[in-house]
């Protein structure tokens, strides 16, 4: 009698336990399970930053659009240009605001760029060199672009 009864009593609790156990796997967030099993790892693109060259327009100004997003990336991460006037357009395709600083003498940064907003900055660079473009909000989390003047 009891042997016939037991499975039915236990079916629901077992199902509950199983459901929680299975659904739980996805709920442990970016750091994942033991040994970071199933952790959210950065996309491959972030590990191999592509460089792109600014394109010179008929007026002599070099232009490039840089996408900033919720993955805390600048795409392209490295912008190459020749000395001269450079127009940088930052398009925020995510929701999180960013503020890209331009570590170029006499240049100001973008200021706050809200989600879905765009900001354009024109700089005049005469000295070849590598100029960092960190996000003031996300620098600690590695959000840094580079302007290379060759």
């Amino acid at each position, binding site marked *: *009698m*009891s042997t*016939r*009864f*037991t499975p*039915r*009593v*236990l079916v*629901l*609790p077992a199902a*509950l*336990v199983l459901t*929680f*156990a299975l*659904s*739980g796997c996805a*709920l442990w*967030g*970016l*750091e994942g*399970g*033991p*040994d*970071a099993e199933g*952790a*959210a*790892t*950065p*996309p491959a693109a*972030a*590990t191999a930053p592509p460089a792109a060259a600014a394109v010179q327009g008929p007026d002599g100004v070099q232009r490039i659009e840089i996408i900033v997003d*919720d*993955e*805390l990336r600048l795409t392209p991460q490295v912008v190459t240009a020749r000395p001269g006037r450079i127009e940088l357009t930052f398009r925020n395709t995510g929701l*999180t*605001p960013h*503020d890209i*600083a331009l*570590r*170029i*003498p006499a240049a100001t*940064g973008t*200021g*706050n760029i*809200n*989600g879905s907003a765009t900001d354009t900055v024109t700089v005049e660079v005469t*000295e070849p*060199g590598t100029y*960092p473009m*960190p996000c*003031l*909000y*996300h*620098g*600690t*989390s*590695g*959000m*840094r672009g*580079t302007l290379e003047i060759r």
Partner: protein
Amino acid sequence: MGRIVDISVKASRRALHWLLAVAAGLAAALLPTGAAWAHEVGGVGATNFTTTLSALSPAVSGVRLAVVENGSRLELRNTTAREVVVRGYSDEPYARIGPDGVWLNDSSPATYLNTDRFASTTVPADADPTAAPRWRKISDDTVHRWHDHRIHWMLSTLPTAVAAAPTTAHRVSDWHVDLDYGGTVLSATGSLDWAPGPSPIPWYLLVAVAALLVVAAVFTRRAHALLAAALGALIAADVLHAAGIALVTAGNVPERISAFLGDGMTGLLIWPFGLVAAVLIAKRATFFGFVAMGVGGLLSSMMALDDAPVWWRSSAPSALPADLNRAGVALVVGLGAGLLLAGPLLWRRFKPASHRTTGSPTSTAQGDLADGDPQVAEHLDGTAPGPAGTRVTGEAAEGLAADPVSAGSTSIDSGIAGEHESAPPVVLGARAARAAASPTLDVTAEPEQAGAATVGRRGFAGTLAAGGVGAILGAAGGIAAGTPGEPVAPTGGTPAEPLSGVGATRIAFHGERQAGITTPARPQARLRIVAFDLADGVDRAGLQGLLRRWTQAAAQLSQGLPLGDTGDDVVTGAGPSSLTVTVGFGPSLFGKAGLPAAARPAELTPLPTFPGEQLDPAHSDGDLCLLVHADDALVAFRAARALTRLAAPQARVRWQLDGFNNSPGVTPTAATGRNLMGQLDGTNNPQPTDEDFTAKVYVTDPAAPAWLRGGSVLVVRRIRMLLDDWDTQPREAQERVIGRRKDTGAPLSGGEERTPANFGTTTGDGALAIPADAHIRLATPAFNNGAAMLRRGYSYSEGDAAGLIFLAWQADPRRGFIPVQQRLAATDALNRFIRHETSALFAMPHGVAPGDHLGQDLFGDDPA
């Protein structure tokens, strides 16, 4: 029989389904918020990311900064009479904390960004960091907490390096946050690290053992008592866990009580429910096994979903020790899972007979409900159950096949009435029934079956309930009273007895020129040089921030003031001991940090290669230089170390050197120091009394950049002395190599130490008294177009190597070290006994006025 059993099973299942529906409804209502329930503090759950605050420098008594909520927020307490301004992401004023309360600047984007852990917000268009602050008061407190995104990881994926090797520790980044305190910049520095957690296996085992013990308890003779105890322990563990979380929750008492009870006061609902059930189960109310099942399942599953990561992550938002917290989570999960199974099993084992043998499905189902309701009523009313001996239950009639109630009953009311009429209201377990049937059975083994033992049982239940309530109240009280994350106040080490002159001597830090070049007049006994390389990607603001921190810290250190709660007590009780800190810039700095390569002054042209030198590039050069002098080795070491810590994250050590001279009091103050070859070294130095002393040592050229005018250029050479070769030479040979007597330092041309050398003097045999290749002949300004430098060398010894740390100060090495060394390298007799092993060149900017920072005009007016 088969049909009856079938009906009974159906009825039981219906009751079970009803209960599970309630439990599932509760779970459905609670679980969506469960993820945010009491398991995260400030948006952070268990994590391997660790934010550390290493120093707030300089320290100000009454201004306390702390990392709270596991790195989610910074907390600033200011109990001084002057306000502290926290700088935002563009160095703009963001928050103001002081006697006037807490004010936020509505023009600062940080005001909006810092409200959310992940800055998922929108900054209003009028929030311009360069605009005039628009202060808005937000509280009367003298404490403010904010999500500072400089201190924690903001991305929803792991850092690349961590993702590549998650089981090893990583330094993710270093951070710094500046505070303004009445014109003084208080610089907070710290780091963000990845610290891998432990193996979760022991905790899995604890969960399994706890669950198995609870299930096994059903099949023991004390099933009810053990299950009640398990339920009580479950709730106690859950209360402990919640208390651990509430204690680290920053905020006022209501906020922390709310964190303790969980969103929607979940704890307030579940804990008393569970405690009452525990009491009733202890009183052998079998039915309440289902409540235990519900409470156990709910707490266990919520805990497993939200808190299982504490087992394998290195830190969790809890005031409890990490392993105690992990054990508490394991107990809740294990005991809860066990109760989830044990509840139904208890029912199966001790189910009243009425549920096994009755006829009508309807009445049986109602009987199930009725079975429980009167008990609840009785017990919640506080009505004492009858003495055990008088209790008669359905189970008392076990085997008699008679259910006095159920036949023909069609309503709950009548069912209850029937129960009341025919039997005492409390449905007891089988054992009590057996005891009632045969009171002498098992008396010794089960004393609770005696009449007097009823008190014991009730006492047990009462104890459990009181214990549970006490635990909840105690925890709540503790949470209300405790203050989380309070940093320990640094202990001021005021020495009891006055220090001697050596320890108490202070060298002024501020002034036209940096200290450590020509002040103090007598070089201190100890030297530590640290050369740094800028980290990749450091920008102008980063470099400027670093120089600001160094300036602040050096000013504090040189005056013997504490550097904040740095955690080291190396100089506690020690005086400043003539400490000086001198900062310089290497040629390689220009072209980095937004400083154009063309801005490098001509004075800082890299040194040419000299014949015979055997330089180790890894221990040469550098972007930045810290020169720390003091009359005490511990003071010098600690100052250099503290400044090195402050250099992070912008700069890292490239090389460092320790040097020593005679201690003060060992030789007369004005005496020239000796090197390890035994010579007086520095005899022919420019003297401060010389008319052109300043022009020789300090940059006075109007064409030099402003930051360098009033500064000086330093050449550092580590010159190894081949002492084994040197010592085999007779004294006379050694003296001819140098051109001076070793004992007095007098030139071989005659006279005393300071007598000018006569390079034309010959000895009796016609040879030059000072040989043609003698060191002083080649080095003398007279033969180098007046090239001169101020040498303030130190000795070093490192393993079996020893020699000279040659430090030469000059206005321009092209009219100082370079021509002299070119001559020396070619023909100096001393070259056989020495080897130039490292080389570096640094330009020391001019001195600093209070409120400014070293090298400030290097950055011009550009606010970068």
